[in-house]
Structures are given as structure tokens and as C-alpha cells.
């Protein structure tokens, strides 16, 4: 990479890595896996950076790389990255208690979904991608995206209701 590209890429990583790590954390359910996936996705991006930086949305490129990296890793050895829903004890102290409980229950439920269902829901509700765009990212049909989203939401509802009843 040329020095100018290197400096530009370093600045991009510095500015956007918290956001990318957050996205990956939501996607994978585990902070360590998130860091691993983001580093790999950024490494792929670094190799293609002179081309990627000219795109309208380089961050979108990296987010897609994060999704495909994560799902590819699962295809290789799915059980090697086991999501863990860990919530810091002191998190969100200023928020209403009931709101935290609901979000914690939803986070737990989200972490319990199969990775591909979670990917569909994260791309839909975090990235606001259309069904067609999600299908493009995941390399599947729109119908599959639709059915996975429906199954995911249904499963989430079941888990959240169960979790709320337990708390």
C-alpha cells in the first residue's frame, strides 16, 4: 500500500472501528469474536483499499465483509465461536429499570438465535437493508431472507416472553 493509502486506511480504522466493532458485537453476540471478525474484514479491506476508498460507502463494504467473514467462519467450524451474552454489571445505570430488562431479555434472545437468522435481523433492523440487499449480502434468495426473518422474529418473541416471565 502506498504511504498515502496507508495513512488514509489507518485514519479510517481509527475513526470507524468502534462502530464496526459494535456492529460485529450485535452480529456475533460475543465481543471477542467481534474483534476477530472485524480485524479479518479490515485486513481484507486493506488489501483492496485503493479501490475501496473510492467507493461511496467504504464502511458499508467493510460491514458486508464482516457479515461474510463471520458466516464463512461458521461454515468452517461453527462451534468454535460460541456466542455468549454477557452484559456488564454497571451498564446503562441511568436508564429506567424496566427498559434495561426488556433490552437485556432481547439481547439474550438475539444471542440464542442461529447465526444466519441473527444476521438477517441485524442487517434488517440495524443496517436498515432491504430484503433484496440482505439477500445480496448473504448470497441467498429474497424468499429465504423473508422466511428467516419471520422465523427469527417468531423465535425472539418466544424467548423474550419466556425470559420476561422468568425475571
Amino acid at each position, binding site marked *: 500500500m502506498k504511504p498515502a493509502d496507508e495513512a488514509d486506511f489507518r485514519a479510517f480504522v481509527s475513526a470507524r*472501528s468502534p462502530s464496526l466493532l*459494535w456492529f460485529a458485537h450485535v452480529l456475533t453476540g460475543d465481543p471477542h469474536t467481534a474483534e476477530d471478525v472485524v480485524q479479518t474484514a479490515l*485486513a481484507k479491506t486493506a488489501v483492496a483499499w485503493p479501490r475501496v476508498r473510492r467507493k461511496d460507502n467504504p464502511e458499508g463494504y467493510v460491514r458486508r465483509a464482516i457479515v461474510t*467473514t463471520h458466516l464463512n467462519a461458521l*461454515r468452517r*467450524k461453527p462451534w468454535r465461536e*460460541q456466542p455468549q451474552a454477557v452484559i456488564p454489571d454497571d451498564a446503562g445505570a441511568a436508564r429506567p429499570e424496566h427498559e434495561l430488562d426488556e433490552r437485556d431479555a432481547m439481547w439474550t434472545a438475539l444471542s440464542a438465535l*442461529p447465526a444466519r437468522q441473527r444476521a438477517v435481523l441485524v442487517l434488517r433492523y*440495524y443496517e436498515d437493508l432491504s430484503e433484496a440487499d440482505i439477500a445480496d449480502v448473504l448470497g441467498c434468495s429474497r424468499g429465504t431472507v423473508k422466511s428467516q426473518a419471520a422465523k427469527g*422474529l417468531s423465535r425472539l418473541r418466544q424467548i423474550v416472553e419466556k425470559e420476561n416471565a422468568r425475571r
Partner: protein
Amino acid sequence: MNDLEELLRDTVSDTRRRLDPPPSFYDGVRRRATARRHRQLAGGAAALAVVAVAAVGTTVAVQQPAHHKTQVGGPSAVSSDPLRGSVGASVSLGGDKFQAPMDVVATPSGLYVLTTTVTKLDAAGTRVVATAPGTAGTPSGLAVDGNRLWVWSQDIGQVKLYDATSLQVLATFESGLNFFSAAAINGNLWLAANEGLYLLPSGATEWAAAKHVVNSPVYSVVADPARHRVLVGTMVAEGGSDGLGGTSVTAVDTRNQRVTTAGATVPVGKSSIAVVGDQVWVGGYGSGDSKRIEHLDATTLNVIGSSAVSSQLGPGAILWSGDKVLWVRNGGDEGLSCVDPKTGAIREYWDGIQGPVSSIAGHAYAVQGDVVRLNLNAACPG
């Protein structure tokens, strides 16, 4: 948007889960990018070398009598890197891409593939001959020994025993554990779990019959039938890589279930072990410049060397025992290498192959949605 969808949107946007990159984050990105470039350059350099040889050959041919011209050069030599592997025919398993391949085992009687279902293909790997539902939870791996086949779930600890010919379920075991790996030998199943190593003996009909053989956390287990033992990757907190710990490979005698040898700690976590003939290898995930793959002395289980593939790996390596070769996958990216188990030399590699791999009798198969047959060169006997 209903309440559930609003809650979901709020949850995935919840700033409490914001992560800040650690100080070494950018260095990690650079190291992975460098390893990726090296792999690309290695492939490109080898291809250029072949082009150069072909060009020299063509020059020589021009200077030689005409009847020698047909012996050198040629389009196939110019267009291929001698170590770069290609793929042959593929067989569809049906379903969609959400059915991730979890495991594949090639045996003399057939090829077994695990997704959410168990699929048996004929010995040539050309057509599906039987299917059956996998375990509950997330079916994660399979092991075959003679006419017994086991499938296990990592997340809920269910194990199913099948007849390997008909795929009829013979028994179901509910352990409640989290399994990482399993190996079958002498009709018994050995399972690696966070709680230790378990032996599910042949003839068992319920999990209560399982024996707890090793108490410390175990990530990997592989059969070493020639030495009547299983090799176990014991997780070690000290002396390992950041956050992942290290691994000590331990031998357990399959006849008396006693630990016979414990090797030194190698700096990899999430280990996988491969036994190919009388050669033993361990691989896993590491940090910094530490080796991701190590060659072990089969007796002491201490490190005696590494492999040329080590410099081309990203954050980690995943190993499989081939029939006569060691299979090594880049743990953070695509990339599969066929490695000489004695010298560690790379015999063939594939850039775009994903999913698990298995080989037998000169044939190798990868599963990445479909079953893909790998074309093996003469130096990679599979």
C-alpha cells in the same frame, strides 16, 4: 413496526454494548493484511515462475530443431501454478446456503456430511444414498467407527448414535454439556468438553453410562488407533496466547483410560489435533508472531518443528487428519493446504475452499454448501 420490532431495533442500537478497540487493534489488522498479501504473492510468484519457465522453454524450443518444439511450453503450463489446486465435480446436498456444513468424514463405505441433517453419499462421493435428521440444537460434528456413526450438538450436548449404513437412530443421549470435539475408536466415543474428557462406551443406552476421564477443560480430541490412545488438547490458562490460553496435548490410553503422556504447552487456543500415520500435529489460534501450527514428537508430545504453511496463516489454523496428508485451513480466512505430515512442506493449496475437509484413498472432499471433490496432484496423496 410492532413492539417486538421496536424493541429489537432499540436493542441492536443500545450504546451500552459499544466496544472500543484495544491498543493493538490496528497492528492486528496490519498483520492479517500482510499474511493475506503474502498468500496472494506466493500464488502470483509461483505462477510467474511457471510463466518464466515456459518462456525460457519456448525460447529454447525456437533454437532447437523443429521436432523438439512440441515437448516444451504449452498453454496448461503457462496458466497454472503447480501447487495451486483445482476442484472437480460437486454434488448438491439440497437445501439453501443457510444449511452450513459442519463436518465431513470419508470412509471406505461412504462419505458422511453433516449440516442440520446427516447425509450419506456413496464411496465415490457422487450421489446421496441416505439422509436423516441430525441432533437437536446445533448439530456440530460427526464421528464414524465401523458401522456406528455419532452426531453431537455443541450447544445442548445431545449425542445421537446411528447405524452408519441405514442412518437409523440407535440411541439418543442427553448430556447437558457443551462439546467442542469428538473422536470414535473401538466402538467408543470420546468427547471433549469444557468440563473435561468423556468416554461414551459402546453399548451405552443413556448418558449415565458415560465416564468422566479427564477433569480439566478439553477443546479437542482425536483418535490415534495405532498407539491405542486418544490425543487430547487440554486447555491451559498460562503460557498461551492473549485471551485464548494455551494447549497441552495429552495422551489417554483407550484400554485403561489413563493419561500416559502430557506434552509441553503450545501457544495456541481453540486447538485441533491431527494424527497422520506416525506424525502428530497441533494447531489453533494465537497472537503475535507465535506459530499457529506445531509438529509434535509422537512419544513425548513436545514440539519438534512447524510447517511452511505457518507463515501464511492469519489468526489461526484448523487441522484435519487426512489419510496420508495433513490438512490445514487458515482459521481467519479462506485457504486450505495439503501438507506433508513428515516435513511440513506444502504439497498443494486451494484459495477459495471453505468448510470441513476429509480424504481417503487418494480422494479428498470439501463441503461448502455442496460436496466438492478436490483434484489432488501427485505430491498430495490425500
